[in-house]
């Protein structure tokens, strides 16, 4: 009854033994370095089968197909994916394997946003392999040697959506306990088991002794069995041959320790042999599986970091990345220049946020595209897990599908339509989910009414198989100024939800409570204390408001979460009403005076631009504006200073970092002028819009960033599309805004064709638009060849060209 063992093993009730190394075994049989080992399934099936047969004879329950790199991209013209999988499964069957696991290794490419392979393209590469393996008759999948959580997720989704077979997933770690991309064992276990991996674990990487502590770290986060396929030690070269040191007995002894920690699926990776597998067989036959403990905790994660709360702990969700009622945020989302978003993210992280809410809900923008880009960019600057905040289920799904981690979805509510659309998304992608206590009848006024909606939501999540700890009920704060019974009802609702729906968590956006009242932070803080007292787990707040974080930090002392009040004493020892903290985490510091700077603010501002010092720039500019208007500040102070910088750069008395530092200082000055102008209602200077980007396939964006800084300084509005940008995206942006100038950058010869392609599309869709190109490999001849209107040798020349074109 072969299926029994597999299902018992995936339920954690039986051991399952995989095979050992294929690559090292094939090399021992003459495979040349750099050859595609997968092709041997077609050219030398008997050799591949011979390796399998040895593993079967050694006692392996499962053999792994020789298809690690058998994706359409790597195979190229050498063979089709279908041929290779068909042959590979046949080789395994011929060897008498009890189960055949179809092997899916990494694509070989780095996924966006760090690399250029789109998540959907990675998914397609895997999906084709999955379909081929299913057709060939595989019994399960093993997704292995993953370093990138996003890629592991693409592979797992490909299996789940293109087959009914289980998939075990292992990632590979370095000695520092992280994958090449910085993922920890905790993150891998949490994210992949939430997403539906049949087992999670560690493979390759290191020897069994080094792998043991990594898989032990996974145990408390994995909702599924644990798996280990270690190397036979760390490889080293002896007499020109790569050798592995750990013999079968030593290997099995190390595995024994891991069985005690709850590992139930084992095997071997590089350097292991049939003898290693035989030793493991002997070990497993004398044992029974140990079940690993899964503590009750709420947990979400980004690719590098987990945020978790055990009952009694409280967490902070930063609310600032949301355009509602925030002019600068609206402007940032509309323009696509996300510097302000990035700054808010970093400020909230510094202030103590543990999760960041991300909302891109503006009627006039493509919410889905903006949300996805925000998530990509936030992943680049913060390790905090994200809360995807949208009312459109399609936006939520687009964002969480490729999110490298376990996201929190904000939100579902008690309406039948919402439950039907959002709960399945949370279940499918293994997300935690915020449930709002409102339904077709609105927000119930009473605590019992809110509980009733919460019951409805939890019934739906229970039915969808979402663990209770992943369900977070928001009892919805309402203004005390309009209904003074509201605060008590909310607090009571929190108590009821926690008591009546055991395991479920609660969250609250606090600040509504004070709407219409003066000195709102005080009311918010008082209410937050009361809510924590009622059992609130997570607060959605602005962590930059000191009073709020004071409540959080002091509550953690009272609740016992801050053990020994260690953190409180560390941060609050110097605090008192007489000495309030100005900014979170910072002590009062008098502004530094620099004696070497001119006292006249106009002179000082010029000097600061020339010296490239942005620190003291804001103060200097504010002083300039005391005596002068904005026009003077721009035309008589900043622009002439920038012109001088440009001259010095041309003459070679400045080099690139100086040019950029000056541009940065000038930008700090412009921002002060712009902020002052907005206060006075004066329109900002607008010289026209320029779209800039690095072309498809190219991730080098330094040159593009320099151009952007300079153009912004000269008063152009810059739409920065980022790097690795598809021709269609450029054309869309140009057409949508009727932009008259595009700047394209490419650093590599291999990406210049993408430049030509982009220009061709622009000619077709936006014939009015001029194109300026630049980048390391470009020359005036190249520029003509790709069909550009202008070649710019550097950023100052681009600014000059923009001035001419947009004059």
């Amino acid at each position: 009854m072969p299926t029994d063992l597999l299902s018992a093993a995936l339920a954690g009730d039986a051991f399952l033994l995989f095979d050992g190394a294929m690559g090292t075994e094939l090399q021992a049989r003459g495979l040349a370095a750099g050859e595609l080992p997968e092709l041997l399934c077609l050219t030398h099936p008997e050799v591949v089968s011979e390796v399998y047969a040895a593993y079967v004879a050694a006692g392996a329950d499962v053999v792994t197909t020789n298809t690690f790199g058998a994706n359409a991209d790597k195979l190229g013209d050498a063979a089709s994916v279908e041929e290779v999988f068909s042959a590979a499964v046949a080789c395994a069957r011929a060897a008498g394997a009890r189960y055949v696991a179809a092997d899916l290794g990494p694509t070989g490419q780095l996924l966006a946003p760090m690399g250029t392979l789109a998540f959907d393209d990675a998914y397609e590469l895997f999906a084709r392999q999955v379909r081929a393996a299913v057709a060939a008759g595989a019994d399960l999948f093993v997704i292995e040697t993953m370093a990138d959580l996003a890629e592991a997720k693409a592979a797992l989704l490909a299996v789940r959506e293109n087959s009914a077979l289980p998939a075990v997933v292992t990632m590979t770690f370095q000695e520092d306990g992280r994958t090449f991309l910085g993922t920890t064992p905790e993150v891998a276990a949490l994210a992949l088991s939430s997403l539906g991996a049949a087992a999670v674990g560690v493979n390759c990487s290191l020897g069994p002794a080094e792998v043991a502590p990594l898989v032990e770290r996974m145990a408390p986060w994995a909702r599924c069995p644990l798996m280990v396929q270690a190397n036979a030690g760390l490889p080293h070269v002896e007499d020109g041959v790569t050798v592995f040191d750990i013999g079968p007995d030593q290997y099995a002894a190390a595995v024994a320790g891991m069985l005690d920690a709850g590992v139930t699926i084992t095997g071997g990776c590089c350097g292991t042999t049939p003898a290693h597998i035989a030793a493991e067989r002997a070990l497993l036959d004398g044992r029974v599986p140990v079940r690993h403990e899964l503590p009750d905790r709420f947990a979400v994660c980004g690719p590098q970091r987990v945020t978790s709360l055990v009952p009694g702990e409280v967490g902070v969700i930063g609310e600032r990345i949301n355009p509602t009622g925030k002019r600068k945020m609206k402007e940032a989302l509309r323009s696509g220049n996300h510097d302000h978003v990035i700054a808010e993210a970093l400020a909230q992280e510094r202030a103590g946020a543990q999760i960041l809410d991300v909302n891109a809900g503006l009627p006039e923008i493509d919410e889905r595209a903006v949300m996805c880009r925000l998530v990509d960019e936030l992943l680049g600057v913060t390790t905090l897990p994200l809360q995807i905040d949208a009312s459109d289920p399609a936006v939520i799904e687009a964002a969480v599908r490729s999110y490298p981690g376990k996201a929190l979805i904000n939100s579902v509510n008690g309406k039948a339509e919402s439950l039907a659309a959002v709960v399945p998304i949370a279940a499918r992608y293994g997300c935690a989910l915020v449930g709002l206590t409102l339904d077709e009848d609105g927000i119930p006024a009473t605590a019992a009414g809110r509980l009733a909606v919460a019951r409805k939501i939890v019934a739906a999540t229970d039915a969808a198989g979402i663990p209770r700890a992943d369900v977070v009920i928001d009892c919805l704060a309402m203004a005390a100024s309009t209904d003074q019974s509201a605060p008590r009802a909310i607090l009571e609702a929190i108590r009821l939800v926690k008591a009546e729906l055991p395991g479920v968590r609660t969250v609250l956006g606090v600040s509504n409570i004070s709407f219409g009242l003066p000195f709102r932070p005080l009311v918010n803080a008082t209410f937050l204390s009361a809510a924590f007292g009622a059992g609130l787990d997570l607060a959605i707040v602005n962590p930059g408001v000191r009073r709020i974080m004071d409540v959080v930090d002091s509550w953690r002392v009272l609740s016992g979460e801050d053990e020994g009040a260690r953190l409180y004493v560390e941060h609050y020892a110097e605090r008192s009403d007489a000495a309030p903290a100005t900014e979170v985490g910072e002590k009062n510091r008098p502004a530094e005076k620099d004696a070497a700077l001119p006292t006249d603010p106009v002179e000082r501002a010029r000097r600061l631009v020339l010296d490239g010092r942005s620190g003291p720039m804001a103060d200097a500019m504010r002083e300039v504006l005391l005596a002068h208007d904005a026009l003077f500040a721009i035309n008589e102070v900043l622009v002439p200073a920038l012109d001088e910088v440009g001259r010095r750069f041309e003459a070679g008395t400045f080099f690139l970092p100086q040019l950029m530092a000056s541009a940065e200082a000038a930008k700090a000055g412009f921002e002060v002028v712009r902020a002052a102008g907005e206060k006075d209602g004066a329109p900002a200077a607008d010289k026209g819009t320029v779209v800039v980007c690095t072309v498809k396939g190219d991730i080098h964006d330094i040159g593009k960033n320099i151009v952007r800084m300079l153009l912004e300084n000269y008063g152009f509005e810059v739409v920065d599309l980022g790097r690795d940008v598809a021709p269609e995206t450029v054309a869309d942006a140009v057409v949508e805004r009727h932009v008259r100038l595009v700047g394209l950058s490419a650093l590599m010869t291999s990406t210049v064709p993408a430049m030509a392609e982009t220009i061709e599309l622009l000619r077709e869709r936006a014939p009015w638009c001029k194109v300026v190109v630049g980048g390391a490999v470009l020359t005036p001849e190249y520029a003509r060849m790709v069909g550009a209107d202008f070649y710019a040798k550097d950023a100052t020349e681009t600014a000059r060209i923009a001035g001419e074109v947009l004059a």
Partner: protein
Amino acid sequence: MAAAQAYDIRSVDRAEVLRYLGYSGQQLTAELDARIDAGVERCLALARPTGCVRVFDVSGRDERDGEPVISLAGTALELRGRSIAAHLAGAEAVGVLAVTLGMGVEAELRRLSLSDRVGQLIFDAAGSALVERAADAAETTVVAAAAERRLFCGTRFSPGYGDFPLATQPVLLATLDAQRALGITLSSELLMAPTKSVTAVVGLFAEPREDAGHESCAACLCRDFCLLLRSGRTCRD
């Protein structure tokens, strides 16, 4: 999995970093000086320079499609083009190497690109200088292997130089198992990520080379990492 080496690199030549930044004697402010120092420090702190090296005997020199091709024993790697043929003329064996600073440096470049563009420029230059140091360190393994066989090393030559095609990268990286061992990935445009990675081949010759940079230990870029000096030898002995 191939054997990866970790390189302990604690400094970068500041003049090299400045050279990557286009420096030609300009007067620097104390702030910029400090930012450059900070960028170099951060790069050294985040980089995990690692590499893989293997040496293969030359097994054949042919002409295919009007192009010279050098074949190597025990690997599917072939070296095509006139540039590499000239560079390796007379070589008995070839050292193949790949090094990288790791994804930590790449993530920092991405972070700076979104939040501090001056910092990005400086950090990028520091990374470029540092990955060349890592390549120097990897080259010493080839030098040592050459010395063992009483052969002498030439200089490094990378895919993309002259007419040595970038299309060499997939097989070169596979030969070293560089994705598994080092985490180097390759895009469909054949660009490596982490971007601060270097691949190269080095010829091993019967006679000492005059262009190899190994003529004197004092001027040798590999000196800090030399495996021979530790045992009191040089690669010219």
